[in-house]
């Protein structure tokens, strides 16, 4: 292990990202708010810490195979903690460090679970900062770093793999990893700009439009209002949100392919995307009919709210127009289950990812076929493309670890916080899937949970965002002995 190199790279990244604290300063200047010193202080501390890790440890060794896991984990933890500072220091929020860290980590992992109430009264620069955290976390800070720092060179791929969501971690869109990362960010940026414009046209003011576009495209779910999207009570805005949540839940590699070949038909040739849309449509229909038909339901617009909430939860965004946890019958739990499937691989959405669910289903069908034809040879195929057995295996281990982690964390959270099952189950589910809002006590926000539970949930969010194995590998003795 060459911890020196790992710390140096982490220090470099931290130094670089300290400058992002200066963006909210601009907002503070525009709106003439008292938060400037808060951000400057956070910037100074982060910059100093970054330089301290970077400068003394000069050494020119390249990154090796497993170094990426540690760097990514350290960086997420580091940025989560340093990112908590503006919220902690700000006089407008009277937050404990735990709460600040929870908010920061929830932003960075695009979970969107919040502990703050009274968002509407907060300074705009602080609100903007929260949204910015989500935006950076959406496409991934590591991917951004790989795009901007060619100096990471060969190690870029190692890092990129630790953060990219989906089963095929080595998928490159272009021959060079830097170009791939850049392409992803260009698409991400384009989507964000278009989304902001659409929100603006739909009636948001410019600040809200930009802020919400960050949270929408990142599939985060932070809002600048306590009532989330429900604040605007506008069908147009909800439609824009639905469209961009769906778009952001699509594999960005597929967006890239469509853009490169100028052929939108490619979208519909992709099996994962077709399944994804099918799930969203089917689920919306079920939820709407549940809301429409159930005697206990007293929702004014079952179709409008049903569709919005389904898309928002199923893509793991977590915007709300209604308190869906109070919905009748099976609806809340069904939505939570849908969040487990999440979006497509390579998107900004969380969850297990549609493609993995699809592969698990296909493998189940294969077992059935094998029982009927004991001598049959049945490959797993997505469309007409066979999938390597190695990948199917990886999907299964991912799934089992996911379920195991979920059970383990639920148990710990229940034990530590003395919580009821619904709250613990949904809080861990919502954090692991990077969804945000849960059921029971955590339906609206997470403020009421004890500190220990919040730290556990932060860890869960990281597990979800980094798809478990990146963190899990660090917890094995074999990694440190290698």
């Amino acid at each position, binding site marked *: 292990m060459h911890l020196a190199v790992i710390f140096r790279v982490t220090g470099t990244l931290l130094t670089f990202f300290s400058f992002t604290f200066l963006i909210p300063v601009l907002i503070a200047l525009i709106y003439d708010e008292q938060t400037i010193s808060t951000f400057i202080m956070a910037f100074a501390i982060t910059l100093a810490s970054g330089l301290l890790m970077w400068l003394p440890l000069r050494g020119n060794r390249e990154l090796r195979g497993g170094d990426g896991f540690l760097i990514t984990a350290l960086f997420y933890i580091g940025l989560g903690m340093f990112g908590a500072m503006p919220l902690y220091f700000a006089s407008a929020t009277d937050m404990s460090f735990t709460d600040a860290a929870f908010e920061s980590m929830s932003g960075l992992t695009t979970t969107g679970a919040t502990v703050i109430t009274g968002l509407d009264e907060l300074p705009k620069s602080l609100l903007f900062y929260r949204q910015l955290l989500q935006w950076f976390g959406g496409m991934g800070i590591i991917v951004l770093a790989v795009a901007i720092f060619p100096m990471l060179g060969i190690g870029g791929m190692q890092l990129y793999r630790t953060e990219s969501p989906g089963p095929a971690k080595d998928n490159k869109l272009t021959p060079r990893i830097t170009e791939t990362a850049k392409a992803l960010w260009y698409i991400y940026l384009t989507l964000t700009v278009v989304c902001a414009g659409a929100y603006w046209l739909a009636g948001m003011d410019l600040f809200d439009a930009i802020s919400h576009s960050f949270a929408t495209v990142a599939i985060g779910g932070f809002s600048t209002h306590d009532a989330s999207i429900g604040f605007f009570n506008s069908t147009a805005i909800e439609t824009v949100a639905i469209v961009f949540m769906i778009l952001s839940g699509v594999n960005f590699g597929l967006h890239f392919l469509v853009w490169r070949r100028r052929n939108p038909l490619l979208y519909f040739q992709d099996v994962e995307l077709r399944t994804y849309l099918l799930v969203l449509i089917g689920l919306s229909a079920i939820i709407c009919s549940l809301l429409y038909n159930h005697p206990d339901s007293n929702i004014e617009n079952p179709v409008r709210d049903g569709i919005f909430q389904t898309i928002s939860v199923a893509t793991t965004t977590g915007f709300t127009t209604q308190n869906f946890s109070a919905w009748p019958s099976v609806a809340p739990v069904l939505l939570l289950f849908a969040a487990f499937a999440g979006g497509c691989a390579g998107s900004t959405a969380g969850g297990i990812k549609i493609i993995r669910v699809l592969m698990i289903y296909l493998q189940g069908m294969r077992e059935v*076929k094998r029982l009927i*034809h004991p*001598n*049959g*040879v*049945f*490959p797993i195929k997505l469309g007409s493309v066979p999938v390597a057995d190695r990948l199917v295996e990886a999907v299964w281990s991912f799934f089992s670890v996911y379920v195991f982690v979920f059970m383990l964390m639920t148990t710990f959270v229940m034990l530590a916080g003395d919580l009821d099952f619904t709250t613990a189950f949904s809080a861990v589910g919502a954090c692991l899937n990077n969804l945000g809002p849960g059921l029971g006590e955590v339906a609206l926000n997470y403020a009421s949970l004890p500190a220990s539970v919040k730290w556990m949930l932060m860890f869960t969010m990281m597990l979800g965002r980094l798809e478990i194995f990146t963190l899990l590998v660090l917890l094995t003795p074999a990694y440190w002995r290698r």
Partner: protein
Amino acid sequence: MKILILGAGQVGGTLAENLAKEAFDVTLVDNDANRLQELSARLDIQTINGWASHPEVLRRAGADDADMLVAVTSSDEVNMVACQVCYSLFRTPTKIARVRSTSYLTREGFFSKEHMPIDVLINPEQVVTNHIHELLKHPGALQVLDFAEGRVQLVAMRAYYGGPLVGQELRLLREHMPKADTRVAAIFRRGQAIIPQGDTVIEVDDEVFFIAAQEHIDAVMSELRRVERPFKRVMIAGGGNVGAKLASAVENNYNVKLLEYSIPRAKFLADQLLKTVVLQGDATDRELLLEENIEQCDAFCAVTNDDEVNIMSSLMAKRLGVRQVITLISKPAYVDLVQGDIDIVVSPQQATTSSLLSHVRRADVARAHSLRRGAAEAIEAIAHGDRKSSKVVGRRINEINLPSGANIGAIVRNNEVLIAHDDVVVESDDHVILFLVEKSQMRDVERLFQVGLAFF
């Protein structure tokens, strides 16, 4: 006519044999000296040992004055380069090459003089696959051959007890089927050819060749045997080139199971095919066949590259209750042994030879099919000229001076199918479909269709 054959494999060897028998000058090139020696000892051909695409080797083989090049080595690439070399260095007029990989066939116009100068592409596996596919479409048919892009088909079938026309005179055919026009081209009774006349009586077990428009085939067949229900479940034994092509061609229309012995190949096939159920195992494994409900299968196609496996698995499948077995047999000697036990024998050589025959004929022949292991032949010849220059154009069919044993089955004029009754008059550019009971009559037929000097 000088013909240069590259590659002395199964296809090359059989082709050389067939052509040498018809008195063509055949030169065979291969890099396996033993194989060449074996063939040259048996056949009247010249052999050259060397790498088939090298200009030096081709020069030695006489590419300068060859009339035709047939490149059938096992490598697509060697075949293609050989054609390019012959075109660029030796100006060989006709270049025929076997290209198996469909990847090369994606772009229209790739095989043209400017790019890859190959005049005719042949793909024996494709021919065999099409052949079996046609047989699956028409349960009960022994052979189904296309003419005029499939508008007219020549069908061989065995007459069975229970067919309405069996035991009747041929002239009754028209009364039985006023709508479906057909013509019986030949009847083989116990191996002997009978030229069908109006008063010929069809007997049980006769092998009947008839020609009809594609849409009438099934109606005619139902006259000669009880109606067979269409095939639904098909089992293919052997996942080689033929098996794989066949499975992918028919998997959308039938329930297909494909048996393949090699594990990696089975895996590869399962990856490639969409609906086919690929089974890994031995085609002659009785337990496996039973486990896969062989008795429920309508057709069993044995297309491995091993004659013995094909025969044994077919016999077993037939014994276990398959309705129809179709068996690929390369060795001519085996064909006679299994007559009667196996429903249909498909010979890959015959298929390949057929696809090349039309190019070696002197008249303008669009399509030729070798039948009954090369003894008989059916051709689609194009009539040219006028009443003066041609011996067929402007004449009624009963006026044409055909050699005995040859008869005209149908005429295709501007996409319209005319069944050849005596009063039909042949026009220029008609596609005339002839059936020759004896191949030796080919010379006369060729002469008949060649345009006389007056045409020029």
